[in-house]
């Protein structure tokens, strides 16, 4: 069978499928309005919700910081939690901006690479959030506790802070895509956080690289530049 015959066969296949498209203005408007709403249920909605909740959380933390402003350890702890939360929210915001910049009219390799890249960044936001853990061990430490807590307080507080620091650093370093395939506990911990789509995205990024590198030369630009 020659190459041309495949194309002839495809034409026959095309003729076999006698589709009819029932698209009129009413249906088009229905598609426009309903799809516009449904898009918000996806990644964008999750990020907007995350930023909304994060903002509320930040306001509460600022209020809490203001209430305890005469307690330096508490203020520092609350400040650190605010900072980590702000970094995680910035990551969410960045993902939202990236989603907004994606154009399906760009070439397939570039667009798919951007989409898969966004899914991969979900993991980064998750890792950052764990860095606030040690500050939850110090957020209740008042001036009075420091001055009058005695050996018992320090015997509890110091190991607690050390354990939380070690745990936060350990989780930050180990919650990676590579480990999710190697360590069961990582896979369990990140299940339900979009891990499956992240995993597929990583696999797809590898496929895109394979697909692109065959010729060994540069790609065509994202927007059409040649005359058609």
């Amino acid at each position: 069978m020659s190459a041309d015959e495949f194309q002839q066969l495809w034409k026959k296949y095309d003729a076999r499928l006698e589709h009819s498209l029932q698209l009129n203005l009413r249906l088009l408007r229905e598609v426009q309005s309903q799809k516009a709403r449904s898009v918000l249920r996806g990644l964008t909605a999750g990020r907007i919700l995350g930023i909304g909740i994060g903002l509320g959380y930040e306001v509460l933390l600022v209020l809490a910081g203001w209430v305890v402003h005469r307690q330096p350890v508490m203020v520092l702890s609350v400040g650190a939690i605010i900072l980590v939360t702000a970094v995680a929210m910035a990551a969410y915001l960045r993902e939202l901006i990236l989603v907004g910049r994606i154009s399906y009219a760009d070439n397939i390799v570039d667009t798919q690479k951007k989409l898969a890249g966004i899914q991969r960044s979900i993991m980064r936001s998750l890792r950052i959030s764990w860095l606030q853990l040690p500050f939850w061990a110090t957020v209740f430490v008042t001036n009075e506790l420091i001055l009058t807590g005695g050996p018992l307080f320090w015997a509890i507080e110091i190991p607690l802070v050390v354990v939380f620091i070690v745990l936060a650093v350990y989780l930050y370093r180990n919650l990676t895509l590579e480990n999710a395939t190697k360590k069961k506990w990582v896979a369990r911990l990140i299940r339900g956080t979009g891990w499956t789509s992240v995993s597929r995205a990583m696999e797809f990024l590898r496929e895109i690289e394979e697909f692109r590198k065959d010729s060994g030369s540069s790609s065509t630009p994202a927007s059409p530049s040649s005359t058609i």
Partner: protein
Amino acid sequence: MNDAEFLQLIRDNKGILFKISNSYCRNRDDREDLVQEIIYQLWKSAGGFDINRKFSTWMYRIALNVAISFYRQQRRSGLRISFGGDLHLMELADSPADPDTEEKINLLQQYINEQNELDKALMILYLEERPYRDIAEILGITETNVATKLSRIKGRLKQQLVTLNKTFL
């Protein structure tokens, strides 16, 4: 471009929608869902369409991008639009060809289904007889790369058809 002009362009190029949805989705509901999604994305991107360029090339880019994303998400549930009653966006009437051709078409379709998302896009564009230059532009790879990949894909397809023919004979 107003809605009426947009509708006309979609109707004129509806074959692209059908062939892509058939190649990326196995069941009818998913196909209709994908066609809806492609039409929506085409409409959303219509403002950026340069009328000096070929509509079909622009449409292929969007349709294939949507199809690949849709395929990878394994269809999100609850997003299909119901138009009420028995009204569907897409009506399918399968009219079989002669048995020999039918068998070959099935083998070709089976082969397309076995390809990964990107090779599938490449294969569809080749079968649609798009010039290498257009294929390279739509996919975002070089013409040399297109030629290399197509030669490999065609070689594998020929091999598969020969093997299957031997099995059937």
